């Protein structure tokens, strides 16, 4: 079946450095993707989204890149802070439901 997944289950980054979290998807018809952040014991928190008619979108300290050719998207976090430590999920939104990837745990090293 169709799936959404992440490349690395864990990632450690020095505070102040940039981080890149990757995600692959299999459904070529997917047209809307979202990155969520989940802190321990909390629900997924919306970070940024992107539609398939775009290949890049920027927010505050975050950038999402979408490569439809290879069905890959990434989340870049600039100048990481301790509060960025969390699990990050990419999700595909279609037919009113979100299909989540497996998540990458990002740890910011002070």
């Amino acid at each position, binding site marked *: 079946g169709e799936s959404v997944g992440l490349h690395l289950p864990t990632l450690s980054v020095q505070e102040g450095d940039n981080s890149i979290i990757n995600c692959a998807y299999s459904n070529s018809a997917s*047209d*809307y993707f*979202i990155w*969520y952040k989940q802190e321990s*014991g*909390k*629900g*997924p*928190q*919306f970070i940024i*989204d992107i539609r398939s008619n775009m290949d890049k979108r920027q927010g505050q300290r975050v950038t999402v890149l979408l490569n439809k050719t290879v069905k890959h998207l990434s989340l870049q976090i600039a100048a990481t802070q301790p509060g960025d430590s969390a699990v990050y*999920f990419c*999700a595909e*939104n*279609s*037919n*009113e*439901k*979100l*299909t*989540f*990837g*497996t*998540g990458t745990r990002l740890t910011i090293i002070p």
Partner: protein
Amino acid sequence: EPEVTQTPSHQVTQMGQEVILRCVPISNHLYFYWYRQILGQKVEFLVSFYNNEISEKSEIFDDQFSVERPDGSNFTLKIRSTKLEDSAMYFCASSDGLAGGPGETQYFGPGTRLLVL
């Protein structure tokens, strides 16, 4: 900032018992969802609800599950006869638009941790 709230935060129940998980979506939202997350696994879609009826459900959402919007503010998930494998974190979410349209972003509540013994 408006947010989705859920009660209780934790629920422990015996196998075979009924549980009702409660959610108060963001007030102007029209679309409501339940997801679950088994410990250490990814978040899984259960059901979406719009205009007082289920619009989409997953294979997980079998006859033991039901949803209801009993009044203008609450949205509930009922599990009739809980099984051990129902132990998970249950998240409610809401949005103010259909997928592909404006306002489709789903906002999640903090979750209810359900433990079935």
